[in-house]
């Protein structure tokens, strides 16, 4: 098998390409989370009050809560299919560093579930009456935030592989861990929407991303090994 004999980085690249190719053949895996995101955002004006001033106030929070819920929903698909057809087990047996292969899978997952949200977020923000000048900050913050969420979520998804109740359990595990992302992300967005500098929270989000990038792949690898044994 080519994956077993090639260099680790190339193996990770192969996993990334495979996951992207598979997703582009099952297009609904990409579109469902975005549709869910738009639907959750639609619920807020219906539940609250369509007064423009109120909606502009809650815009940052609504975008963030909807984005987090939608990426939570997408997390379930991160390993599910690969566990069912045995691919994940094969990956653990290749002899390649499992953390690196799982990181590649997580990056692919972020491209498929996080990146569409980055593009959809300004649409929701503008529909809520937010200033379009804040869009650059909003998109940066959502990109950083969903990346952290995918990384932390990959640990949670790996831990719940072998259990009976998948998705509710996954939310219970991951949601408390990602509250810092929500706090910094929503604050950066709100600051930008009020025309103030959002640099501080953006740097903090970046710091979270670097921390998650260095630590979570190893935790995911440990969790996958535990779940599959």
């Amino acid at each position, binding site marked *: 098998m080519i994956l077993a004999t090639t260099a680790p980085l190339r193996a990770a690249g192969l996993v990334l390409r495979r996951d992207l190719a598979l997703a582009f053949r099952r297009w609904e895996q990409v579109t469902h989370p975005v549709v869910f995101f738009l639907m959750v955002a639609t619920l807020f004006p219906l539940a609250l009050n369509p007064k423009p001033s109120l909606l502009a106030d809650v815009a940052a929070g609504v975008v963030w809560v909807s984005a987090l819920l939608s990426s939570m929903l997408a997390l379930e698909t991160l390993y599910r299919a690969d566990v069912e057809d045995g691919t994940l087990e094969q990956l653990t047996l290749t002899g390649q560093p499992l953390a690196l292969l799982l990181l590649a899978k997580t990056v692919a997952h972020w491209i498929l579930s996080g990146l569409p949200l980055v593009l959809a977020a300004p649409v929701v923000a503008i529909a809520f009456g937010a200033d379009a000048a804040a869009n650059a900050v909003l998109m940066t913050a959502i990109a950083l935030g969903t990346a952290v969420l995918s990384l*932390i979520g990959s*640990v949670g998804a790996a*831990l*719940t592989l*072998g*259990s*009976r*109740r998948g998705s509710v*359990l996954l939310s*219970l*595990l991951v*949601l*408390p*861990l990602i*509250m*810092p992302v929500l*706090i*910094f992300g929503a*604050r950066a967005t709100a600051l930008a929407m009020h025309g103030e500098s959002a640099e501080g929270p953006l740097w*903090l989000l970046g710091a*979270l991303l670097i*921390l998650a990038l260095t*630590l*979570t792949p190893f*935790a995911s690898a*440990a*969790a996958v090994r*535990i*779940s599959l*044994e």
Partner: protein
Amino acid sequence: MGTWTWFHKLSSPPHCYRIAGQLIPWFAIPAALLIVAGIYGGLVRAPADYQQGDAFRIIYVHAPAAWLSLMCYTVMAVAAAVGLVWRIKLAHALAAATAPIGASFALLCLATGSIWGKPMWGTWWTWDARLTSQLILLFLYLGYQALRSAYDDIGKADRASAVLAIVGVVNVPIIHFSVNWWNSLHQGSTVLRRGGPAMPASMLVPLILCFFGFTFLYAALACVRVRAEVLRRERNAHWLQDLAGRRGRTESAT
């Protein structure tokens, strides 16, 4: 060498079961004495606060509960890490035993805080930094328990929940920092601060007694729960059947 044989003895279930049983009174009796003395000192002897009146007295339960809810999480994560690295089942048993105790203390801390908040702040709940991070800590405990209960196989539950506990303990300071940064209304720390505690001795001494009393209480509860965990894990083991048989015989003989 001596410490290692002691360590290995402790990690064998029959010894652990016996030692934990012997330790219970050594923790429970000091806990009872210290808590009774602390509560008496706090509720009866300490003067009323010049600002808060008698309402401040809830601190004698609230602050120790807050301290223990954090300490339990640390104990749980360290025990889980030891269990994961050295594959010591009893460390996992300690982590499993500690989680519900820590969750109870977190809940107790939130409940007493809320009872205090009603007369003092005029509201049961505010979205203040410390309250919110305590609530998130409770959620972390609940997630840990949920993951544990999702596995039928005890070994798998141990190792999976250990990974979660370790990820969680790395995250706790980040959550604490982020929530603090987000909002702060809670009064600052009164005991551990520069320039000594901002409390007269008549208020401080009972509080310290309660801190130690609650910590001993945790140790006693942990011993009881570790024994229960050992029983659950070893229910088919010979030494346990022997123990039950011997106890049955002595009881029927008397």
